[in-house]
C-alpha cells in the first residue's frame, strides 16, 4: 500500500518486504484488517514464514537480478560507515536520512567523440527506473556516483566540464510548469584511493522525483582533463572518466512507521536530558535549546559589560 500509484499489498518498503515474487497465500485467520495494514508492512512476510504454505514458497523464491559489483562495494562501505558491527545505526550521525537507494542505469547508449585537443568527450544516455521508491520516502539528496577506471593515477588533479539533461519532458503538470531540465557545471577534484566521485544533482532531480516520475532518462556529457586551472597547471592528458556508467544514489527519509526516525530518539533524549532543569530559565525547547542558551548567554554578557 505504500508504493506510489499502486495498491499492491506486498510491495512495501518494510523489512522483509521481498521476496514478493513468491505467491502469498495467507491463512484468512492471520490476515490483518485493511485499516491495520498501513503501519504493519513487516507482518506479511513474517506471516509467510510462520504459515506452512509460506515455508514452502519461501524456499522456492524467484531469483532476483544481481547488482553491479562496484555498486555493491560502495553500499557495503556505506553500511560500515553508518552502522556498528551489530547492525545498530551509529548514534553520532547527524543526517536525517534513514534510507539510501542505489540504482544502476537500465540501459545506456554511449557515444564517444574523441578529440585529443579538447579532451575526452563522453556522452552517456542513462535510464533509471525508480519503481522501488515508495510514496512515504521523501527525497533529501540525489547523487550521481562515478568510479574511475584504474588507469587514472592516485592524487591526480582532474577538471571536468559536465552537461546533464533530461531526455523527455513532462508537460502533464499544470500546477508546476517544468523548470530547467538541463544543467551545465564544471568540477574539479583529486583522485583518491577509492576513486569515487559523487556529483550532487538534488536540485536537478527533485522536481522530477516530486512529480512521481518512475523513469528518469538523462544524458550526461563529460569532458575531463588532468590538471587544475586554478593552480595554473596546464590542462592536458585527456582521461577516460566514465568507463562505467554512473549509479544514481537517493538519500531518503522514510516516514513510514517501521522506519527508524532519528529525530524521534533525539527528541526523546532531549526531553530526558539527565541534567536538572534551570530554575530561572523557561522550559528548554527540545528543538531550539542551543539557540536559546546562546541568546541568554549573550544577554548575560551584555549586562555584565
Amino acid at each position, binding site marked *: 500500500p505504500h508504493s506510489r500509484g499502486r495498491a499492491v499489498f506486498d510491495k512495501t518498503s518494510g523489512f522483509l518486504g521481498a521476496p514478493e515474487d513468491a505467491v502469498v497465500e495467507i491463512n484468512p485467520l492471520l490476515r490483518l484488517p485493511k485499516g491495520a495494514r498501513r503501519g504493519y508492512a513487516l507482518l506479511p512476510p513474517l506471516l509467510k514464514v510462520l504459515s506452512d504454505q509460506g515455508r514452502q514458497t519461501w524456499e522456492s523464491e524467484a531469483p532476483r537480478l544481481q547488482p553491479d559489483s562496484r555498486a555493491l562495494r560502495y553500499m557495503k562501505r556505506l553500511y560500515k560507515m553508518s552502522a556498528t558491527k551489530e547492525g545498530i545505526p551509529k548514534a553520532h550521525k547527524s543526517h536525517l536520512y534513514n534510507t539510501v537507494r542505489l540504482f544502476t542505469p537500465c540501459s545506456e547508449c554511449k557515444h564517444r567523440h574523441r578529440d585529443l585537443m579538447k579532451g575526452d568527450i563522453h556522452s552517456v544516455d542513462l535510464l533509471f527506473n525508480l519503481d522501488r521508491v515508495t510514496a512515504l520516502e521523501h527525497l533529501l539528496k540525489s547523487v550521481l556516483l562515478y568510479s574511475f577506471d584504474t588507469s587514472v593515477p592516485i592524487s591526480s588533479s582532474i577538471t571536468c566540464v559536465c552537461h546533464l539533461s533530461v531526455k523527455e519532458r513532462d508537460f502533464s503538470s499544470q500546477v508546476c510548469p517544468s523548470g530547467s531540465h538541463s544543467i551545465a557545471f564544471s568540477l574539479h577534484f583529486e583522485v583518491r584511493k577509492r576513486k569515487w566521485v559523487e556529483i550532487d544533482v538534488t536540485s536537478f532531480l527533485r522536481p522530477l522525483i516530486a512529480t512521481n516520475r518512475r523513469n528518469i532518462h538523462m544524458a550526461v556529457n563529460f569532458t575531463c582533463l588532468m590538471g587544475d586551472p586554478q593552480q595554473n597547471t596546464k590542462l592536458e592528458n585527456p582521461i577516460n572518466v566514465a568507463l562505467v556508467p554512473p549509479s544514481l544514489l537517493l538519500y531518503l527519509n522514510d516516514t513510514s512507521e517501521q522506519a*527508524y526516525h532519528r529525530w524521534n530518539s533525539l527528541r526523546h533524549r532531549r526531553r530526558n536530558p539527565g541534567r536538572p532543569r534551570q530554575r530561572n530559565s523557561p522550559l528548554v525547547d527540545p528543538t531550539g535549546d542551543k539557540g536559546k542558551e546562546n541568546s541568554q548567554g549573550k544577554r548575560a554578557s551584555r549586562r555584565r559589560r
Partner: protein
Amino acid sequence: DENLGEAPATPPYNLSEYFKQFLFPQNECELHNFRLSFSQLKWDKWIIAPHRYSPQYCKGDCPRVVGHRYGSPVHTMVQNIIYEKLDSSVPKPSCVPAEYSPLSVLTIEPDGSIVYKEYEDMIATKCTCR
C-alpha cells in the same frame, strides 16, 4: 527461643529467605541473548548485511512487587493481585520487552537495486513486567 536446654524440634525458620522467594524469584524477568543468522532463514541471498541479527528476547517470572525495578505501571501490581486473590483466569503479568533499538539492513531489491534502510524496534534492549 526460651527453652535453651532442649533441642529444637525443627530448625529455626529463616523468614528473610522465606520472603526473598517472593521478592526476588529465581528465574526473574530479564533480557536473554539470541542470535540468528539470516542464512538459517535462507534470506542471505537478498540481505547483504548484517550477516547476523540479535533480536534478543525477554523471559522470566515477574515478581509480585514490580514497580520501581521494572518500571511497570501500578496496574501491573493490581493485575497480580486480581490473579492471586480474585480470579486466576486473569493472566498474571508477563515479562516482555520495554525498549528497543533500531537495526540497519542492506538488501538487494528484486530489480537489482540496493537499499540501505534503518528499521525501528528491531532489537529488544530492556524488559518489563506488564
